């Protein structure tokens, strides 16, 4: 099916026609640019200059605008990739779980180095940030298929099977033909539900809240949500009721309900489990929200790394339409139409930010929008858009089903209900735990078998690195807030290696729109490199704090406002890690200037030692 990507012929040649067909399938709509380019990437393994021109012509954009989108998302490539593209998750949890050996095994088996594509265009090997499989690391994606719990041996066998021509899906889920999409998804990736709670992961009736909601007026629905005390579960913790009320009150003839299933925060995989096991409940919640805010159109923004869940989610949408709970005349109510489209992302953490998610859905690079206006006032295509997290919609449905008081009674006075925690790292039982807000970190660590933890990253890289002395703090919005990520580190882990990785993550994922985040994070990352190389001066600690403050205060979106957190929270909770590494220089000569490495190149060219800095020079 593949055409040799490097062959570029004239306008009416076969690839150009096929690309035009792809554009036509999406109505030549420039807002569907991401879908178009995903299909071009899948069909031709790259977005060639020729493709850029063809897509631009079909959608009425300039070539550089299309190139802007194609060059933004890491799953789209402007250079030819292999027919089989293997992406190894290089998150810190995978590194600690043996990523290096697995990578070496793949390299040996496929005969190419990481980051390379084989000459015959058959394989590409690459790293990618967290793909949401931290509870079964090390993990990897083979095209859209996920393989987990990798060992060097398994990597070698996968490599040889692929070389023998076996399809990735066959390798990941042998005998997949007989399985339904839901069963295939559950077979490919373990759910690891370790503790089911009363709201989400326990038994949930099929009509979980929509029927009850339809007996209320839209305002009454919003009142119930507000009365329940439900707050956004994506990490920001904004009052869901107030958000729905704002979206409902904004006059407009079209309104949208978006489900944020980007789940890009490293260490977070609870939405993966909800999408696998509670997709119905989530869509029920979206439908209730549509009723409340008066929206007829909905969208689920599914991260590109979870493409393996696409068929399952499409099937659930289809079954709801068939059951009269989605599409036209829902539950037979005239005038209440609401349908949902699936929009796949393509590898961009920043698209978890509401504005960037909307930009991505509009076929633009995933850059956050200027605020104000806020999405609930002017969002997708300029219309009011309600964006909530997967878990938030699930809670909303249950609240309408069981009543606001039932939900409010759980948790604490300002963090009501239960929360899904995705626990990974150095603990016995990594997985998803549904627990009421307010429990202490120590209690959670006991539950997960991580009592000997020395540090816990609460809320992923943009959260807080908590030390043992603070394990008494409570998991709630007004103490240790988290979108769900709990990453446990034992005493043998190197704190600065973790901070170094998280800063490289933010450098890789910054959209580049604003100066402090684009440039400032690169400087922070380089400074951490100096600390790790033992080349830091005492005032470099103040430099880290000072630069972090500038980035936080002037950044344009949440990414830049939280990217210095790995440094600031470890500086606060692990000060010795930094102070032990700095070299003071009493004579004000910078200990951070490493003359030996600076003259290394010249030493090799001249093939002699330094007469000044090599003591043993005779």
């Amino acid at each position, binding site marked *: 099916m593949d055409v040799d990507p490097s062959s570029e012929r004239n306008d009416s040649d076969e690839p150009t026609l096929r690309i035009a067909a792809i554009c036509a399938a999406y109505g030549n709509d420039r807002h569907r640019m991401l879908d178009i380019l995903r299909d071009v990437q899948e069909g031709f393994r790259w977005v060639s200059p020729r493709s850029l021109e063809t897509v631009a012509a079909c959608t009425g954009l300039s070539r550089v605008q299309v190139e802007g989108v194609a060059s933004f998302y890491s799953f789209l490539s402007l250079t030819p990739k292999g027919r089989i593209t293997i992406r190894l998750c290089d998150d810190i949890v995978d590194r600690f779980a043996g990523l290096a050996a697995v990578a070496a095994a793949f390299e040996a088996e496929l005969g190419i180095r990481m980051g390379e594509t084989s000459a015959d265009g058959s394989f590409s090997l690459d790293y990618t940030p967290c793909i949401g499989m931290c509870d079964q690391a090390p993990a990897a994606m083979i095209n859209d298929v996920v393989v987990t719990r990798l060992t060097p041996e398994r990597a070698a066998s996968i490599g040889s099977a692929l070389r023998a021509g076996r399809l990735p899906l066959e390798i990941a889920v042998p005998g997949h033909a007989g399985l339904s999409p839901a069963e295939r998804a559950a077979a490919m990736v373990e759910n690891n539900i370790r503790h089911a709670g009363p709201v989400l992961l326990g038994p949930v009736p099929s009509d979980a809240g929509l029927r009850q909601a339809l007996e209320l007026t839209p305002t009454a629905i919003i009142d119930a949500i507000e009365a329940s005390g439900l707050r956004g579960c994506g990490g920001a913790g904004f009052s869901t009721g107030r958000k729905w009320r704002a979206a409902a009150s904004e006059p407009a003839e079209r309104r949208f309900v978006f489900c944020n299933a980007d789940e890009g925060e490293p260490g977070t995989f609870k939405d993966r489990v909800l999408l696998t096991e509670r997709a119905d409940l989530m869509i029920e919640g979206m439908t209730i929200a549509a009723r409340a805010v008066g929206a007829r159109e909905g969208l689920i923004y599914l991260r590109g790394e979870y493409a393996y869940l696409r068929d399952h989610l499409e099937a659930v949408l289809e079954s709801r339409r068939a059951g009269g709970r989605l599409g036209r005349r829902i539950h037979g109510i005239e005038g209440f139409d609401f349908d949902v489209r699936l929009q796949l992302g393509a590898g961009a953490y920043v698209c978890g930010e509401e504005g960037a998610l909307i930009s991505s859905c509009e076929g633009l690079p995933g850059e956050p929008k200027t605020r104000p206006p806020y999405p609930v006032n002017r969002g997708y295509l300029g219309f009011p858009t309600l964006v909530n997290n997967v878990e938030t919609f699930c809670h909303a449905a249950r609240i309408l089903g069981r009543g606001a008081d039932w939900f409010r009674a759980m948790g604490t006075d300002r963090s009501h209900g239960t929360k899904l925690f995705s626990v990974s790292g150095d603990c016995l039982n990594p997985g998803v735990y549904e627990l009421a807000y307010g429990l202490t970190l120590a209690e959670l660590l006991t539950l997960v078998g991580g009592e000997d933890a020395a540090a816990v990253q609460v809320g992923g890289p943009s959260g807080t690195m908590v030390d043992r002395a603070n394990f008494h703090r409570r998991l709630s919005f007004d103490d240790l807030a988290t979108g769900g990520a709990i990453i446990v580190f034992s005493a043998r882990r190197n704190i600065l290696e973790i901070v170094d990785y998280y800063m490289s993550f933010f450098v890789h994922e*910054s*959209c580049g729109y*604003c100066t402090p985040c684009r440039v400032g994070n690169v400087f922070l990352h380089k400074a951490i490199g100096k600390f790790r190389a033992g080349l830091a001066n005492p005032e470099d600690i103040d430099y880290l704090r000072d630069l972090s403050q500038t980035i936080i205060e002037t950044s344009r979106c949440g990414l830049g406002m939280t990217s210095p957190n790995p440094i600031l929270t470890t500086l606060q909770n692990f000060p010795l890690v930094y102070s032990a590494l700095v070299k003071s220089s009493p004579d004000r000569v910078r200990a951070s200037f490493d003359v030996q490495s600076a003259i290394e190149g010249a030493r090799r060219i001249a093939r002699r030692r330094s007469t000044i800095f090599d003591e043993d020079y005779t």
Partner: protein
Amino acid sequence: MSGTGFSFTIDGVAVAAEPGQTIMEAADAAGLYIPRLCDHEGLRHQGGCRVCTVKAGGRSVSACTQPAAPDLVVENETPHLNKLRRDLVEMLFHEGNHLCPICEASGNCELQAMAYRLDMTAPTRFPYLQPSRTLDASHPDIALDTNRCISCGRCIRASQDVDRKGVFGYVGRGIHRRVAVNADDLASTDASIEDAAIAAGTCPVGCIIRKRHGFATPIGERIFDKGPIGHDIEDKRRE
């Protein structure tokens, strides 16, 4: 003030504003200069450089995009904000290759003038990223040295909205994000020296260069030899 107008304060000075006006638009009209690099007369507000960060109602926001509001208390000329702005300007200096002594934009360059206004003279703590992107001198009249680009997007917006040509566009993500042209090189686009995107003053630095005009203005007669950046706005108040 017309019926719907309102007022707010910048550094204690009352400023009149109309609904929908941003803090910077109102300040400019009132002759109060707020430093900025990516905002430009007649172009959409981008809010990318963040040099125009002000405190509005206690929150740090970009003045070029933040709408003014009745009785809003805005801080602009404060040591803390100027320190933030100086850091941002220094970041831009260190992101590219800004070698003023050999640059023909020197004296007319807004980045340089902003560094003068914010007194960027202390020893630096930032590393240099030293990009080495190839120059594009293919066009008969225009040369592009994107090593001096500060990613302000003024050329992109001018070419998009004013010239309706879309010659320039952002490509790449994060620190690799740069301004690219709508073809393999500039000569293959329909760019011309009459474009607003190419006009002097659109590109604030020495990235978009008019061939055969380099070093023509003697030192002393260049734009910022006559006064610090922003003096044209501040002069409005002195009249």
